């Protein structure tokens, strides 16, 4: 067996008074993919940040090639060949793709930037990922999955000895995930030591050589991946047996609540029409770039759109999120960092922002807000060491739960959830599916947009499939099968969507 390149020994970490890691041991060997899994807030990202020099351990040591090291910052770690892809994006959004890929290590010819070489290299890296993004495009104009691909391309360009990936596939579709895993495999064969984490346990089973499970900041086990089933992993993570992931589906009423007619979002969606019934869970499937998010944003008034949206028979005015909210229609974004949460603000301020009108007519009732937070923490199992922290200090999955709690506080009749379980652990996924089913049973309606086929299939009564900005078809009841959906999504009668 090869010696570890990078390891941590008996590492603990505290944030203020709250301890989040307890005596954790972990190592990475060349040519091996070591997966780190655990529930939301278990301490995965924290462990990775310590390995990559972003955070210092409160106790214990970091070993590089067997020697104790201290990285004053991630720069020193990067110089030693350790590269980390963050769970939350670390791109400079006003800059172009190429500028991001070469940020801090620009290629030069004499005193000038060698634009041509950087463009070519960026294009090559992106091609390896089968990503059709133009190196000259601004990152701010890219979709979430494409941003992730750029982030990965950037890491590939660094030719790392150790590559640490924090939920790289959380925002990717299957196709993109496959490409990424191929690249991971290629790097492994080239001798790179890789740390991989994901809440998608099938990926872990597929790619990992060894698996370490963290629970509540403690290492539960480190075992070879061979022979480890997904169920075993899930149980080790949550510390109990998990029953069925999806609750039984209800039967929607016949009465329509949301009717969308000929909605066109210029540049993204053409002539979309569908209806949503009371008590129904309607799934939206499709490839990334098929216009699902844009359609939803058009419906709630976040994007300029033409066509008609009716809530309970009444037409909504165009372009007013507030009017949609007043009519009981809310949208939960897929981009929690840029559009969902105020990362620098407290949990309460985030929680009540959408439904502030429910907390007092003139003055805000702060006691009621605190009660709402207590309620949300228990309803959605939000794990914050200290409820006084800012939203940005929550673990990724817990941020998602906070966003969900914020949306539900508005007591919507119709809620559109874009990627409901992005970055959420299996145990909590089960809770969220249960929650969606309960909403429907209460007579509310839910639209679930998801790139996870098993998820849409598991929760939805009916599934609308989009392809290249159009609604390609609909499946219901026994016709809901992966095959049917994929066939529609590939748009056999349409040309493929350009990215």
């Amino acid at each position, binding site marked *: 067996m090869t010696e570890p390149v990078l390891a941590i020994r008996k590492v603990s970490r505290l*944030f*203020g*008074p*709250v301890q*989040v890691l307890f005596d954790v041991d972990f190592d990475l060997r060349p040519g091996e993919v070591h997966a780190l899994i655990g529930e939301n*807030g278990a301490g995965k990202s924290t462990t990775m940040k310590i390995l990559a020099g972003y955070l210092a351990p409160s106790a214990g040591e970091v070993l590089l090639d067997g020697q104790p090291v201290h990285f004053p910052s991630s720069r020193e770690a990067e110089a030693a060949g350790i590269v980390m892809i963050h769970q939350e994006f670390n791109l400079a959004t006003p800059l172009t793709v190429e500028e991001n890929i070469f940020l801090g290590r620009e290629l030069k010819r004499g005193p000038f930037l060698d634009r041509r070489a950087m463009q070519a290299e960026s294009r090559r890296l992106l091609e390896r990922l089968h990503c059709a993004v133009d190196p000259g495009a601004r990152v701010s104009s890219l979709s979430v999955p494409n941003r992730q691909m750029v982030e990965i391309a950037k890491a590939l360009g660094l030719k790392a000895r150790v590559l640490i990936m924090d939920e790289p596939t959380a925002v990717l579709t299957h196709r993109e995930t496959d490409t990424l895993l191929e690249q991971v495999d290629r790097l492994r064969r080239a001798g790179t030591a890789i740390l991989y984490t994901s809440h998608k346990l099938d990926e872990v089973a597929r790619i990992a050589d060894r698996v370490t499970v963290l629970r*509540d*900041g403690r290492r539960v086990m480190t075992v070879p991946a061979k022979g480890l089933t997904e169920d075993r992993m899930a149980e080790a993570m949550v510390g109990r047996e998990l029953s069925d992931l999806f609750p039984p589906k209800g039967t929607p009423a016949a009465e329509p609540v949301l009717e969308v007619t000929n909605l066109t979002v210029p540049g993204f969606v053409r002539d979309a029409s569908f209806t949503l019934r009371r008590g129904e869970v309607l799934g939206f499937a499709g490839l990334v770039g098929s216009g699902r998010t844009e359609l939803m944003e058009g419906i709630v008034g*976040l994007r300029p759109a033409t066509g008609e949206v009716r809530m309970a028979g009444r037409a909504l005015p165009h372009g007013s*999120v*507030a009017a*949609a*909210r007043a009519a009981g229609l*809310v*949208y939960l*974004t897929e981009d929690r960092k*840029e*559009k*969902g*949460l*105020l*990362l*620098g*603000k407290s949990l309460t*301020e985030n929680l009540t*922002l*959408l439904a*502030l*009108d429910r907390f007092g007519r*003139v*003055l*805000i009732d*702060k006691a009621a807000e605190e009660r709402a937070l*207590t309620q949300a*923490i228990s309803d959605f*199992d939000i*794990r*914050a*060491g*200290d*409820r*006084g922290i*800012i939203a*940005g200090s929550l673990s990724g999955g817990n941020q998602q739960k906070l966003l969900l709690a*914020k949306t539900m506080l*508005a007591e919507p009749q119709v809620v559109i959830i874009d990627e409901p379980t992005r970055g959420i652990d299996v145990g909590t996924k089960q809770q969220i599916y249960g929650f969606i089913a309960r909403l429907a049973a209460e007579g509310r309606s839910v639209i679930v947009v998801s790139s996870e086929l098993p998820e849409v299939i598991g929760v939805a009564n009916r599934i609308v499939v989009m392809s290249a900005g159009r609604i390609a078809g609909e499946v219901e009841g026994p016709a809901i099968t992966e095959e049917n959906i994929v066939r529609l999504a590939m748009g056999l009668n349409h040309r493929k969507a350009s990215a």
Partner: protein
Amino acid sequence: MSAVTVPRPRFQLYVLGPLLALFVLIALGAWLNPNFLSYGNITNVLARSAFIGIIAVGMTFVITSGGIDLSVGSMAAFIAGLMILSMNALLPHMGAGVPVILMGVLVAACAGLLAGWLNGFLIAKVGIEPFIVTLGTMGIYRSLVTWLADGGTLSLDFGLRGLYRPVYYGGIFGIAWPIIVFAIVAILGEIVMRQTAFGRHVAAIGANEQVARYSAVKVPRVRIATYALLGLLVGLATIMYVPRLGSASGSTGVLWELEAIAAVIIGGTVLKGGYGRVWGTVVGVLILSLIDNILNLASIVSPYLNGTIQGVIVILAVVLQREKKAADAR
């Protein structure tokens, strides 16, 4: 892990820094000159800081939402000119009496509201950078008042001056009117910022406009409201200011915008938006005027160095803010 701990109060320099600085200044002033704590001096300092103070409270909202307003000084001058002209014009018709003054007050309030709204409209609806819009209107109002005064001074008719004077020089229970008005504006401002949906929305827009938009906040409307509120407060400050000198000219209110912005920053509001505190702004205004006052009373440092000291304090305040950011990230 899910145990709930109540946030502990910790000594935080960025919270207490401005207050500490204020106490140090007061102690210093009292030590240097026994007259410093006299009733006369305190009233003088507070009354004179009231104009900047009232404006700075409005500026706190604008800056918290991520905006800036450079036009307030010229706006004050323009409103003062407009107010004096309209009162003088109404005098022959209505006679020297309270109604004329009330009309003047109405003109000032409306002009302020309208001017602020116009800034807000250009920024939020037309989508021009706040810095550019208000740089433009700053020049416009300054030149308009100079033009109205024909390069000289606009003076309030003598018949009205005596009647209007008490608004600046008078008071009740020994407290001058400007001080009372400033206090009320500050208290209301603090409540609005901290306790109302409007205040929350302003901070949310400053922190991340996208998130605010996705959270059904009416972003353009709130933005316009911050500028309109500031305009209204500029009008109010002018109403308190005109009776002091009874005149307005091209040099009225010069550099007020910078003093107001400095006070807001010293008070701990973040210049790029997202977080603001009105009480801090009040402390900032007091710090600035006390420095001025102490330099004038004590003769150790030349009063000409006033600007130097104020500049140092502004920079120090921003260093303290950096500490706050580090504390949040830890």
